[in-house]
Structures are given as structure tokens and as C-alpha cells.
């Protein structure tokens, strides 16, 4: 096949080429190779003539290969002539003669070390930008909230109820399931290890205190960040992509007030409620495992639990919850607003939203732990 695409013989200083077959897209790479092989013979020629009479099919790819050969020969100072090219294919060749005239832009070469340093620098600057965008969103939310307090009828009540249904009510089953399982696992581990000291009853203290103070709120916050935070980012991000947010602005609405405030408020309400439900489910799971696995009857479990925990433990968990909701909301919405035009950036920003909000939730939890320890709660 390739033999017939282009054959040539050298007669003195004249290289006579005969083209044939299909000069089309599907043969373009073959054609490129054949042309490369003929280069040696072309070097010795001063005149090149090419007879296109045998070509059955000819498209842009073939025309470009021909044009490329012509340019190479002309650049080397050879005289060229083409025969046997049908009229309409001449038009195509003429069209391609006009393109790719600018020299290709030289590829940028980067020093590896400098590139590595640059990426470290960009990462650090990125952290700074994240902090400012967080503060920015916090301020904008505060401003919007202050305005809504003065004119409560401006609160998007319908939107808020709709969001509450999605992030609160519809999250209940999965939160119940996960916290129930985690409560059970903690209880089982406690009983298993405390049994060596004959202290399995203390596993009840363990599960009670841990769940109320830390685990309940943390699990719920992480679940909400993955479930609702990511969907906030994706929603706002695709609205950014389709210029819906710009449209809102031009109509005189503040996107923070219309879109973000109701979402964040809903999280501030939903996370404590879910934490409450989740903590109960975790204690329930602990009780069930204690009974089935540890042989601790529900009566004894309840008696031990009321002794071990106090309202303080419950308060510590619940006080943290709204702040968790706030942080998740701010991160999710500010990441959503950073989405650029492409689908890829939507994906990146959604991932970033989940990772950053889980990270911040854990950092916040640590700071609360220090705070509560120092005030003796």
C-alpha cells in the first residue's frame, strides 16, 4: 500500500515522483513516513516534479502533506512542479498554502529546580488566598445577615426550607445508620480491651463521654461536609460556569444574600439537630452491643450511663455543632464561587471543598478541646 502512495526515481538532477492511492486522513501517517524516506534522494536533486495523476482520494490531510513537502523543497532551494492535480483539489491545496505560515512558538523550557520552588511558593500563596477568601466570605455573610435582620422579609424562606429538607431531613437515615454502627464499634472495642482488667462496665463511660463530646459531632460534621458541602460547591460552581451568578448580580441581587446565606443558615441549624440525633443513635448502638456482646443488660447500661455522663458533656458536643456547620458552609460556598469555565475546575473545586472543610472541622474541634479544657468543662 505504502509503496503506491509516493514513488520516485532520480534522473540526474531531476527527481520524478509519482503519487497514487488515497492521500487521506487514514493514510496520513504512512504518507509522512514515505515522504521521510524519500528525503535522501531529494537531497541530491535540484528539480522535483510530482505527478498527482494517480491519486484517487485527496483531502485536507493529503493536501497538507503535499504542501509541507513543497515548502521543504522550496526552502532547500529546489525547483518544484506539480502535474495532474484536478481543479477542485488545487483549490484545497491553495487553501492550505495560506495556513501554518507563522513559525511555531518555541516550547518553553523550565528549570526543574525553579519549577519545584515555584510550585512550593504557589502552594504557600494558595494557603494565604484560601484564608482571605474564607475571611471574605465570612464578612460578606455577616453583612448579608445584618441586612436580613433589619429586613427579615428579605430572607429566602422557601429556599431555606428546601435546603433544610435536603441537608437535614434527607440526611437523617444515613446519619442514623453510621452513628449507630460507630457507637457499637466503640462499645465493642471498649468491652474487649477493658475486660482484661475486669472493667468492662467502664466501656459504657467510654462510649457515653466520647460520643457526646467528640464523636457524635465529628462524624456528623464529616458526613455533612461530604454530602451537603460538596453539593453546595457543585451547585454554585455550575451556576458560575453558566453565568447565572453574573445574571443575579446584574439584576441587583446580592448572590451572597440570595444563594449563600440561606444555605449556610440551614447548615447552622441542621448540624446541631443531626448531631443530637446522631449522638442518640450512637448511644443506642453502644447499648445494643453492650447487651449482645458484653452481656450488660439495658438496665445496667442505663444506670451506668446516667452516672458517667452529665449535661456538661452533652453541652460540649452541642456547642461545637453550629460552628461546624458554619465552617462547612463557608468553605463549600467560597470554593463554589472559585469555579472557572471548565468541567475540570468544577471537579477540582468540589474535591477541595470536601478536603478543606473536613480539615477545618478537625482543626476547629482541636481548638474547642483546648478551650473547654481551660475553662474546665
Amino acid at each position, binding site marked *: 500500500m505504502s509503496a503506491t502512495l509516493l514513488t520516485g526515481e532520480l534522473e540526474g538532477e531531476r527527481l520524478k515522483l509519482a503519487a497514487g492511492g488515497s492521500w487521506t486522513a487514514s493514510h*496520513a501517517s504512512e504518507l509522512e513516513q514515505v515522504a521521510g524516506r524519500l528525503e535522501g534522494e531529494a537531497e541530491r536533486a535540484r528539480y522535483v516534479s510530482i505527478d498527482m495523476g494517480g491519486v484517487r482520494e485527496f483531502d*485536507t490531510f493529503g493536501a497538507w502533506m503535499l504542501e509541507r513537502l513543497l515548502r521543504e523543497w522550496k526552502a532547500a532551494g529546489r525547483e518544484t512542479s506539480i502535474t495532474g492535480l484536478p481543479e*477542485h483539489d488545487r*483549490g484545497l491545496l491553495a*487553501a492550505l498554502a495560506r*495556513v501554518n505560515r507563522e513559525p511555531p512558538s518555541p516550547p518553553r523550557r523550565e528549570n526543574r529546580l525553579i519549577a519545584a520552588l515555584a510550585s512550593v511558593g504557589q502552594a504557600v500563596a494558595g494557603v494565604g488566598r484560601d484564608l482571605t477568601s474564607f475571611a471574605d466570605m465570612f464578612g460578606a455573610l455577616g453583612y448579608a445577615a445584618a441586612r436580613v435582620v433589619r429586613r427579615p422579609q428579605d430572607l429566602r424562606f422557601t429556599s431555606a426550607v428546601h435546603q433544610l429538607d435536603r441537608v437535614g431531613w434527607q440526611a437523617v437515615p444515613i446519619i442514623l445508620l453510621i452513628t449507630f454502627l460507630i457507637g457499637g464499634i466503640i462499645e465493642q472495642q471498649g468491652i474487649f480491651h477493658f475486660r482484661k482488667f475486669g472493667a468492662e462496665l467502664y466501656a459504657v463511660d467510654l462510649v457515653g463521654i466520647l460520643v457526646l463530646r467528640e464523636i457524635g459531632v465529628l462524624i456528623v460534621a464529616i458526613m455533612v461536609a461530604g454530602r451537603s458541602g460538596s453539593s453546595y460547591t457543585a451547585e454554585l460552581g455550575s451556576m458560575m460556569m453558566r453565568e447565572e451568578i453574573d445574571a443575579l448580580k446584574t439584576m441587583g441581587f446580592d448572590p451572597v444574600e440570595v444563594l449563600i446565606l440561606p444555605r449556610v443558615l440551614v447548615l447552622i441549624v441542621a448540624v446541631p439537630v443531626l448531631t443530637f440525633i446522631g449522638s442518640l443513635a450512637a448511644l443506642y448502638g453502644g447499648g445494643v452491643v453492650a447487651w449482645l456482646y458484653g452481656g450488660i443488660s439495658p438496665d445496667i447500661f442505663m444506670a451506668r450511663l446516667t452516672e458517667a455522663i452529665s449535661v456538661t458533656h452533652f453541652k460540649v458536643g452541642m456547642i461545637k455543632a453550629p460552628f461546624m456547620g458554619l465552617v462547612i458552609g463557608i468553605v463549600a460556598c467560597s470554593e463554589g464561587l472559585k469555579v472557572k469555565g471548565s*468541567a475540570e475546575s468544577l471537579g477540582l473545586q468540589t474535591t477541595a471543598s470536601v478536603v478543606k472543610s473536613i480539615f477545618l472541622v478537625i482543626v476547629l474541634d482541636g481548638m474547642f478541646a483546648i478551650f473547654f479544657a481551660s475553662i474546665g468543662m
Partner: protein
Amino acid sequence: MEARAVISVRDLVVGFGDHLVLDHLCLDAYSGEILGVVGASGSGKSVLLRTIIGLLPKREGQIEVLGLNLDEADEAQRRALERRWGILFQQGALFSSLTVRQNVQFPMRENLDLSPRLLDEMALAKLEMVGLARRDADKFPAELSGGMTKRAALARALALDPEIVFLDEPTSGLDPIAAGEFDALIETLQKTLGLTVFMVTHDLESLYTVCDRVAALADGKVVAAGPIAAMLECEHPWVKTYFQGKRGALLAERRVSV
């Protein structure tokens, strides 16, 4: 020009739920022509285009493209056929995470075995042929203007040197001058590449200047098909208002006086 039908649609029925959009529609497009498809908004032009290229299911009827009946074709034949047509969607539908150049290279890379150098040269050649500057080649779709998006999408539709291109409202959203240039571009490319063009359009100007034949869609059928002159004589009420309304009459007059 030989009158070989490259697209032939017979008794096509397409509907959504109990709403019949196309009702026993018949239409032919001949080799090497620019066929304009017109119709009121919502008359089913996009649905017709999407059904022909196989994106929407049909209830009844037959569609043949380049001599291949799409119902009887197997997977390999379908794929081979898809390489022989290019589509310009109404919204461009460029891949947003690839640059313009990569968008054009995408079908080449998937279907042909080209060297990196040839891949680059061909992509840039196609972009230049549709009138995009070289510096636009490395932009992302979100950074393009509406007209540039259309041009880039056309370059992608032409990437594999198709025999048929389907254009869904190529000039909508362009200013009249840009629309005129785009029409001229389509005409030039059609002449040099010998394309068959199936063009859905609302633009009377395009119909007058570039279309060889026009098919008018109404009530789920093709109510008139033929050159512009035939349209002007058609008695169907919608066609009549469309071509002999204020704007239509103006263009018709200008054309007669030229």
C-alpha cells in the same frame, strides 16, 4: 452535480410521551449541497438533526446516511460512519477542560495514528482555515467569544475531513457581519472540501446567500423543499409568512434586483 441522496429520511416519527414532534417526515439531502432546514421555534429541527445522528430514538421510519441504514448497521459500521460526519452543536459543546487546539486534535488522536508534529500542524491548519488566530489555539473554551466558539466548534466538526457536516444554528448569536462571514466560510469550505452541509437555521440571510436548497418544517412534516424560488411560491401559511413577511420580502427584493 450528481443527485445522489447522502441523507435520506423516510416516514420518520419521533415523539416524547404523547407529543408527536415529527410525524411521518420525509427528507433527502443530496451530495455536495448545502441544505437549509427552517421551521418555527419548537417545530422539531433540532430533534430531526439529533435523530438522524442517532442521539434520539425514533418510533417509526427509516434513516439512511451515506447509503447505510442505521437500524441495520452493526457497531463497527456505525463507528466508521460517525467518522464520516461532523457535528456543530447549537451551543458549541467544546470540551471545557481541553484547549481549542486539543479539542480539534481529540477526534484525530482517537481515530487516526498521527505523529505529534502532524497532529499539531493539522489542528492549527484547521483552526486557521475557520479563521481563528494562532494565539487563540491555546485558549480554553471559557475564554472564547461566542463567534470564536462557533469557529472552534466548526474546526472540530471538520477535524476528520467528514463528508457531511450537520450545523445546528451556526450563525445564531453572531452579529450580522460575523454571521455573513461565517456563511461565506461555510460556503468556501463546502466548495474546497466538497462537503454536504445539513444546516438548521433561522437566518433568512443564510438561506438566501448560501443554501442550495431549503426544507421547511411545520406540523411535524416537511411542508416544502426546494430552492428559494420554490419557497417564495409555496402556499403553506407558515412558509408564506416566513418568506414573505417584512424581512423576507426585503431580502427577496434585494435578491431579485441584484
